[in-house]
């Protein structure tokens, strides 16, 4: 794992001291809320519906047991005993007191964590494939490059006051586990014919009120040119991106309004100016960063473990969890374990302080002391010995985290919604809880197979509803919660923006409406066909007529 160097340590400590001063000036009245707001946002601190909310960065989603224990301590000491994992590999605390935030941040700094650039109009926490360094299909470990991007983007003086927030994600595989195509910049690591590493650069993706799929700006940026290319994109955006309208200020709008060819030409022109500058990433620096992500000391094991096979045979529940949550590792005898933070009926992404401590212990025992957060609000133990899966599963079961529902209908993304968020129009978590209860039957979930359901409480789309196979968007209809259904979205390599299927449903009716959609899929699907594939084959019409039969009657 990456460890802070002297530079990292000193700037984080300096930042904590600076924010301590800013909080003191706010509390003493020297600074108004208007003056303080942009400063607190730069340090991840929001004022939400009920209280302040602090968003802590987990760069590329990788953290250690020591860090997890610190998060547990913070949840217990400065918050209300829990934390909430977000869709950008961060964790949020919902109840910190302003007067305690400086000391909270100092405690985070002790374990090399901070909340810098988790909010505000700057380059946000860089995200990556949660299976990095473990999965066989990757070209390179995406965390190495996410770390290089993190170092470049942290406190970058030119990009601290952008027109709007800017999000970068890195992946290294044909399978997109990092929503690459819906980031301001998505990087996919490639290898050319000469075996050299470079980046396919996607620009201008995003969700929110104007969802757009990113476009490929460059098929192969050589590794040493990565930062100059990113800088060129950011410069062009910073120069020409709109600042007259918050809702048109993201780079996706600039790409859309300027056009791919012209904007690409502008980026290329800028790039040629700065390509051979100090932004060139030297090989020794790449190797230095790479060394932090060296594979852990794996044992030489057989690919097949007889004990594991027997346990699966003897224990169908364990077999189901393996089937649902465990995926292949590139090292024989090891597996990648997904830990679902979607137990039946509970808020997606929430973890209690007690669970955090247990998870820290388990990661230490079973996964080389390392934990990953995913954009789907789950956790990953990336390197678990096959022979120890049964023990891990049992221990996860004891803390209520052995739900085998990864990728299934109850593995929902849900934003905090109106229960916490000052921007929301409707609640998301209670709806997720109701759906989770409705589909509690695991046989049913496994029969339905992969089904990505995503819920946002407003059009800002933090719950990624546009890219849900089934997406739900909360809207306010004369003070009542209604939910609009979109179908056919995908945030993966088969990226698509879902289509709104018709008028919104009341909160009382929406779960039945979802069940109608899913039942129709079951009637229409070919063997083993995913919901998304059935939808793509049959189109919206059958779903419309199932959901709105009265409209058909009216037309007849």
């Amino acid at each position: 794992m990456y460890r802070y160097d002297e530079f990292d340590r000193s700037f984080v400590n300096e930042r904590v001291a600076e924010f301590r001063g800013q909080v003191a000036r706010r509390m003493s009245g020297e600074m108004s809320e208007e003056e303080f707001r942009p400063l607190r946002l730069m340090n991840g601190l929001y004022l939400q519906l009920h209280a302040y909310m602090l968003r802590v960065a987990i760069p590329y989603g990788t953290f250690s047991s020591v860090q997890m224990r610190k998060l547990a301590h913070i949840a217990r000491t400065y918050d209300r005993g829990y934390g909430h994992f977000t869709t950008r590999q961060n964790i949020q605390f919902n109840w910190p007191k302003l007067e305690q935030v400086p000391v909270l941040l100092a405690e985070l700094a002790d374990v090399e964590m901070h909340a810098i650039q988790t909010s505000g109009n700057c380059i946000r926490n860089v995200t990556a494939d949660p299976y990095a360094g473990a999965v066989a299909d990757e070209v390179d470990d995406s965390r190495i490059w996410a770390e290089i991007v993190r170092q470049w983007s942290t406190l970058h003086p030119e990009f601290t006051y952008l027109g709007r927030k800017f999000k970068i994600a890195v992946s290294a595989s044909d399978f997109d586990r990092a929503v690459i195509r819906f980031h301001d910049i998505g990087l996919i690591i490639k290898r050319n014919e000469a075996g050299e590493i470079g980046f396919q650069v996607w620009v201008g993706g995003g969700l929110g009120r104007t969802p757009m799929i990113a476009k490929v700006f460059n098929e192969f940026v050589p590794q040493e040119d990565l930062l100059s290319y990113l800088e060129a994109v950011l410069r062009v955006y910073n120069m020409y991106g709109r600042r007259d309208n918050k809702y048109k200020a993201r780079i996706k709008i600039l790409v859309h309004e300027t056009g791919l060819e012209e904007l690409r030409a502008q980026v290329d022109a800028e790039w040629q100016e700065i390509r051979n500058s100090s932004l060139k990433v030297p090989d020794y620096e790449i190797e230095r960063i790479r060394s932090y992500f060296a594979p852990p000391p794996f044992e030489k094991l057989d690919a097949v473990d007889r004990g594991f096979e027997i346990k699966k045979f003897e224990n169908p529940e364990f077999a189901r969890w393996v089937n649902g949550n465990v995926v292949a590792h590139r090292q024989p005898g090891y597996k990648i374990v997904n830990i679902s933070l979607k137990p039946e009926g509970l808020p997606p992404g929430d973890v209690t302080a007690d669970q955090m401590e247990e998870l820290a212990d388990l990661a230490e025992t079973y996964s080389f002391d390392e934990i990953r957060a995913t954009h789907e609000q789950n956790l990953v133990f990336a390197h678990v010995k096959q022979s120890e899966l049964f023990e891990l599963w049992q221990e996860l079961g004891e803390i209520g985290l052995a739900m085998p529902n990864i990728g299934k209908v109850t593995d929902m993304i849900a934003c905090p919604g109106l229960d916490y968020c000052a921007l929301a129009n409707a609640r998301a978590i209670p709806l997720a809880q109701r759906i989770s209860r409705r589909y509690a039957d695991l046989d049913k979930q496994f029969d339905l197979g992969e089904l990505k359901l995503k819920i946002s409480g407003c059009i800002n789309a933090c719950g990624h509803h546009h890219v849900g196979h089934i997406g739900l968007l909360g809207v306010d209809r004369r003070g009542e919660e209604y939910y609009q259904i979109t179908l056919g979205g995908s945030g993966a390599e088969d990226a698509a923006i879902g289509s709104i299927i018709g008028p919104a449903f009341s909160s009382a009716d929406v779960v039945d409406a979802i069940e109608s959609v899913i039942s129709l899929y079951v009637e229409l699907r070919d063997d083993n066909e995913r919901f998304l594939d059935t939808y793509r084959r049959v189109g919206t019409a059958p779903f419309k007529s199932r959901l709105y039969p009265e409209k058909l009657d009216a037309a007849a």
Partner: protein
Amino acid sequence: MTQQVITANRLNDGLVVFLASDGCWADSILDAQVLSDDTELDKRLTMANAAEQAKIIVGPYAIEVTEAEDGDVRPVRFRERIRAYGPSTHADFARQDVPGHLRHLDDVSPVYFNGVG
């Protein structure tokens, strides 16, 4: 004029508060002063703005409420009800005494985390 109360977030801990008739900021909406006169509302908003200057609260504003005969004060807008009563999903941190707030629909039950605080 409709009935209104003045609400804000407390500066030091961010929690939701309501302006009471004694000029203090109360945690519960039941202790809020219900205003039904424009002049009085303006006067109290001025007082609230002074409280913001005095570093007590952040972002005061008036919300529409209904006041029942038994003194129960209920925000009209759904958003304000959530804000006044707490998240409907983490029961430990929500008002338990508001009928329907935690059991808004039959198939949802509240979550208890046994959290601190």
